[in-house]
């Protein structure tokens, strides 16, 4: 079993890392390469960059910072945002990304996942899924950064993504995201039955929340604010998880 991974998530807009509440009041946190270097030194196991304003116009900007990050970083990283064709993924991978994340485009055209897996291998394909609890459907899939509900059951979709060729699932609980109340562990109990690695996202506020996510089957845990603001330094989190008998890279 590989070590449990700690993954800071960075939102990028027009080549800058930003932080805001639901994409409003964006605050500039710096250049992707500078933050990449900082997290590499702090002991992050992997990074996820989500380009929150991906558009045709800023593809060139994106390739240039992805290339810069690949050059500096000695750990792997994923880039997502606006990947809807094999060619989008190819340009990111050629610039040095290790994996690409797909979300809305995969839900609108599921064959995309298979095309990416066939072209680059399934280890390159991270399927990001945003979900919210619902009385009828259990957990329901939301698209477009969580702004658009669908009638798809999240658990059905996760298994379908596995069958389509996704190599890993990045599962965000919108109910918990930004609350600091902890990960949705019931969701993790079910999703961790998948035969591919599961990254838990949404709700981290305390060290114990990460422990809970791992106890409920997550292979990796992702958080943003806690790490960006220095509220929970990664070395402290890893020491805590190691004390609780989880295998982490120290």
């Amino acid at each position, binding site marked *: *079993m*590989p*070590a449990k*991974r700690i993954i800071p998530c960075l939102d990028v807009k027009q080549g800058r890392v930003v932080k805001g509440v639901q994409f409003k009041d964006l605050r500039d946190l710096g250049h992707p390469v500078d933050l990449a270097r900082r997290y*590499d030194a702090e002991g992050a*196991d*992997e990074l996820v960059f989500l380009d929150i304003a991906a558009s045709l116009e800023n593809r060139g900007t994106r390739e240039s910072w992805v*290339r810069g990050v*690949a*050059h*500096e*970083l*000695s*750990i*792997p990283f994923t880039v997502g945002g606006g990947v809807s064709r094999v060619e989008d993924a190819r340009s990111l*991978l*050629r*610039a*040095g990304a*290790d994996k690409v994340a797909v979300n809305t485009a995969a839900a609108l055209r599921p064959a995309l996942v298979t095309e990416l897996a*066939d*072209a*680059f*291998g*399934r*280890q*390159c394909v991270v399927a990001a899924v945003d979900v919210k609890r619902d009385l009828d459907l259990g957990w329901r899939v939301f698209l477009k950064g969580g702004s658009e509900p669908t009638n798809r059951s999240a658990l059905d979709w996760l298994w379908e993504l596995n069958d389509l060729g996704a*190599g*890993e699932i990045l599962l965000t609980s919108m109910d918990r995201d930004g609350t600091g109340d902890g990960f949705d562990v019931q969701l993790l109990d079910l999703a961790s039955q998948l*035969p*591919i*690695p599961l990254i838990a996202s949404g709700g981290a506020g305390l060290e114990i929340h990460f422990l809970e996510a791992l106890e409920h089957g997550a*292979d*990796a845990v992702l958080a943003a604010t806690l790490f960006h603001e220095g509220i929970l330094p990664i070395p402290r989190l890893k020491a805590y998880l190691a004390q609780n008998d989880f295998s982490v*890279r120290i």
Partner: protein
Amino acid sequence: MSSDPITLIDYDAGNLASLEGALERLGLSYQRAATPDQAAPSGPIVLPGVGHFEAAQKSLRERGWWRVLPSLVAEGRPLLGICLGLQLLAEGSEEAPRASGLGLIPGIVRRLGPGVKVPHMGWSQVRQYNPHPALPDPHGAWLYFVHSYALEPSVETIYVADHGRPFAAIQARGTVMGFQPHPEKSGRPGLLLLQAALSWMGASAPAPEAPCN
């Protein structure tokens, strides 16, 4: 010691940007080579690789590498395969039963599992299996892996790692070496391993200060 740059095989199936970044941090010079005529006249050749075994094999054939690599190795040229690059050095892979490997390292690459998540994705510890002059005991160093297939440990295995069962993390035979993990993605331990392997293969870093001579 060769003063030629390291040759990086560029065949659309490798993450060259990260590898180049790692070589630059180590102060090692390199050049990309899409076809064998672009290779440096001597010095180590690196075969990176991500993706599918058969697609990579096809791309190497189209660019003329497939026929040339065995003869270069027969002449004593050092060759380092990374990830899929290692698997291509073997005799074949369960991933593509109808496509053969380069046959420079014995063994067939087999699918990981059952009973574990595949791909094996993330950081795992490696330990020494057989001694090698270039590679010291790793003392449980953490390295980054992303793969679904692996070689079984053999007399050519230098380091092993575990995912469900032990598998070969580093293989070596003569001047040929293969890394299943990504040293360019494995933090400082990975960089040190890459440096150890490449300097054993004859790569030289530029002299920090030119002596008067």
